[in-house]
């Protein structure tokens, strides 16, 4: 067998990228097919039903649930302001009445005869979806959202935290193997997507938050630094909703590890361009990796695309990255693909491949422990 399927991360200087931008519930699409949109433009919006405030009126006014209905001063569907009387008991011969004033604003939704529970629904909350990608609207999904297409430089990271953000690319490191430390982060990097080389330290991320950077991209990160920054130990890799002041994307993995030189050079070649970055990572079925998307300008579009391999095929000569110890992080190319299973040092049997590293050395690695560098 000369080839096998090993998915990898996509790193390419030019590709046609499509992104689907959908509302969580039905709403209104604000753009039409053929429109050119900027990343920060709102393309669809809707209103989520407001928060629900349940009140046990039966307990609040000390009366049987069945009596609550006739003591209500508002009908179902009525608007109510904070401080406005909502219900009043009949009292004794009209005296000693107890009143309940609403503490919240909203609409009276239901009054239960069984439990005496009253539900007040708060004001509807607007939900907006931004374009995220600068490009052309190629499809409108009525009431749901749009599909936007653009020619971009596209880089997938391996892990990230924080959600969608935008900013110009700024190179903070001079080479792919330079550590990204706090002193390399300067105040003029406000709103920028800062690119480091090797590992990024916790202090550097803290400094980036302080200067107001949009995102930090680096080769690796120490688990301890991630814990210090987040304030907790991340149990499962489902991220994107962290509110930590910026988005972080690492391209290779955890530990002292360099960014792949090709990735670094590609980012450096796009310095100054606006990038859309999303740290959301979901490592489950339907895997989602963080990404850096840099739309190409008219000028860039004239350039040639680089030669690239068919995606997903493990073939002789293909660049691969080892993703497990003892060779973790090393990059090389496939030099042999033996078909028979080999006994590993662990005692397990597995299919392997031979990788020739940049140093000229070769090693047999389980096929499960490499990933293609796709482009």
């Amino acid at each position, binding site marked *: 067998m000369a080839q096998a399927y090993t998915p990898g991360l996509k790193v390419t200087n030019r590709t046609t990228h499509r992104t689907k931008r959908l509302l*969580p*519930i*039905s709403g209104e699409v604000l753009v039409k097919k053929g429109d050119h949109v900027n990343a920060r433009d709102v393309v669809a919006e809707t209103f989520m*039903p407001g*928060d*629900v*405030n*349940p009140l046990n009126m039966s307990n609040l006014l000390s009366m049987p*649930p069945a009596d609550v209905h006739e003591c209500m001063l508002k009908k179902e569907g009525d608007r109510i302001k904070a401080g406005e009387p909502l219900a009043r008991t009949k009292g004794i011969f009209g005296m000693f009445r107890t009143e309940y004033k609403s503490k919240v604003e909203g609409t009276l*939704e*239901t009054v*239960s005869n*069984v*439990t005496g*529970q009253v*539900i007040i*629904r708060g004001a509807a909350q607007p939900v907006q979806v931004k374009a995220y990608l600068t490009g052309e609207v190629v499809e409108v999904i009525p009431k*749901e959202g749009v599909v936007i297409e653009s020619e971009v430089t596209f880089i997938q990271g*391996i*892990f990230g935290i924080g959600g969608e953000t935008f900013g110009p690319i700024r190179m903070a490191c001079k080479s792919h193997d330079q550590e990204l430390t706090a002193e390399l982060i300067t105040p003029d990097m406000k709103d920028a997507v800062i690119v480091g080389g090797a590992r990024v330290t916790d202090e550097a991320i803290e400094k980036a938050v302080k200067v107001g950077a949009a995102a930090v991209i680096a080769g690796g990160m*120490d*688990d*301890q630094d*991630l814990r210090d920054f987040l304030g907790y*130990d*991340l*149990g*499962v*890799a489902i991220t994107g909703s962290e509110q930590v002041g910026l988005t972080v994307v690492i391209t290779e*993995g*955890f*530990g002292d590890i360099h960014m792949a030189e090709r990735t670094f050079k590609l980012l450096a070649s796009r310095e100054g361009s606006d990038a859309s970055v999303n740290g959301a*990572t979901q*490592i*489950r*079925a*339907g895997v989602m990796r963080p990404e850096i998307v840099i739309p190409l300008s008219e000028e860039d579009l004239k350039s040639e695309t680089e030669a690239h391999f068919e995606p997903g095929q493990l073939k002789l000569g293909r660049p691969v990255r080892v*993703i*497990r*110890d*003892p060779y*973790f992080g090393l990059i090389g190319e496939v030099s042999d693909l033996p078909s028979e299973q*080999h*006994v*590993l*040092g*662990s*005692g*397990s*049997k*597995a299919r*392997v491949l031979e990788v020739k590293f940049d140093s000229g050395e070769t*090693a*047999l*690695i*389980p096929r*499960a*422990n490499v*990933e293609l560098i796709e482009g």
Partner: protein
Amino acid sequence: MSKIDPENINVILATDCGSTTTKAILIQKVDGVYRQTHRGEAPTTVEAPFADVTMGVVNAVTEVGELSGRKLVDDDGRLIHPANGTDGADIYISTSSAGGGLQMMVAGVVAEMTAASAKRAALGAGAIVMDVIASNDRRRPHEQIQRIRELRPDMILVSGGVDGGTTTHVVQIAELIAPAKPQPRFGTEYTMPLIYAGNKEAAKLVADVFDESIDLTIVDNLRPVLERENLGPARDAIHDMFLEHVMAHAPGYDKLMGWTHAPIMPTPGAVGNILQTIARLQNINVVGVDIGGATTDVFSVFDEVFNRTVSANLGMSYSISNVCAEAGMENVLRWVHFDMDERELRNRVKNKMIRPTTIPQSQEALIFEQAVAREALRLAYIQHKEFATTLKGVQQQRTVGDTFSQQVGGQTIVNNMKLDLLVASGGVLSHAPRMHQTAIMLVDSFEPEGFTTLAKDSIFMMPHLGVLAEVHDKAALEVFERDCLVYLGTCVAAKGLGKVGKPCFSYTIKGETLNETGEIAFGDLKLFPLGPGETAMVTIEPKRGFDFGEGPGKRVQRQVKGGTVGLILDGRGRPLALPEDMVARQSTIEKWVEAMELYPEMQAAVTA
């Protein structure tokens, strides 16, 4: 679905559509008995770009067809039915956990009573329970509503009140769910199924609370009286809703449902089914575990009472970082008999989490991964024991004789001394390079007491057999006995604690191939060869304070089964304790590693 006549079934095709892999097996009648003959697998195709689960099924079945020389798929890509000569299969059945399985939210009035019963019903049906809402769950009503809004379950199960009991509290629960308008995972077209299995007198009132956005099904109360659970109707309704709603919305499942000759079951529900069948027919107590990448499922049947728990976020790849965080790295490393750099390990754990399909290449990486597995299994079993309890809220009659042994409701029914069979499945257990490693991982984390047979599911066939048991229990049992279980052997373990090095018990082993007598000191572990299919009579004379099932110090004699590992005599005591001091601990673990012949060839690199 055509009617099945068990007598005319000679070829059975079964698939399990998992989140990542679809596994197919072929069962054929060989010399009058059913045997599993071939297996194949292919990536599951439930997600884009394929978005049709039947493609993965056809690929996996095609592989089985190629291996068996039997044409199972016709030129149009349809399964051939019935069997005719060398073509086709008589019946085709399937289970599924693709797309994240069945995800449910359950609600009840009292967390420890009706809500607990509802959770048991949902778990028993094979669901992942996302949250349990109860009147007394310490959350305020608006927090509960907010939580319901955030969840995106496939369906909801509501219970509450015994028949003739509270109606107000039950309706109150419904009134929390209705305004939250829970959104389903699949599309906007999907109507949220809600099963009501509470106080029958409140059913009408509950129905009035919901509008057309909820598809309400009312079944018998799952806790009609406090003293009894009646989970069957709720479980059946969950299975029906699973097919009608969840499966019908998963890509390609409408087609797949037309192919199968029995309803598609959620994978864990099917595993529970086969374990209950075995426990009932052999009159034994069973614990089964399936440790996956993201979750660990534990199943138990004690005195015919079935329980299942899913420990979400205890797993060996996606959740490995969570295992280390929950157990603590010091608890993981206590199983490792050499020094390891903790910072380096933490990075490795995170790298496994973000690249979950990698495998340990070196012996050191394997030993660490097996240490993590012990902790994941230990934590999952603790959760299971806490969940599998006698019913809470039951009034108990006591006599004077009970004064000193007062038991309250809610005691765990898991009793390791009564456990007869412990079955392992899941990658780290099933694919360990040596089965000795599988056996010791089971013993270290489950801590069986007395006499316990250890086995593993050879190729994760239990789901297939679980659904097969529904239509052809004879075939399911024959295959379970002959091909599904690989017996590792028997563990004979002392309950009690003593001083290391002091006598714990003496033993006499009499068998055709094994005849031994001797004494085991406290803290020692000894392995005897007793191969697959062999048995031996073991007599244990415990020292004072040690119990093997007949009481402390009482003699016990039992026949034990051999297996690929053999007979393990475990004098380490229960609960299993390791020395506090690191040097002493490492040397103790090293002694056990040698006794169990765990890693005979310490190789550092790949050898051809």
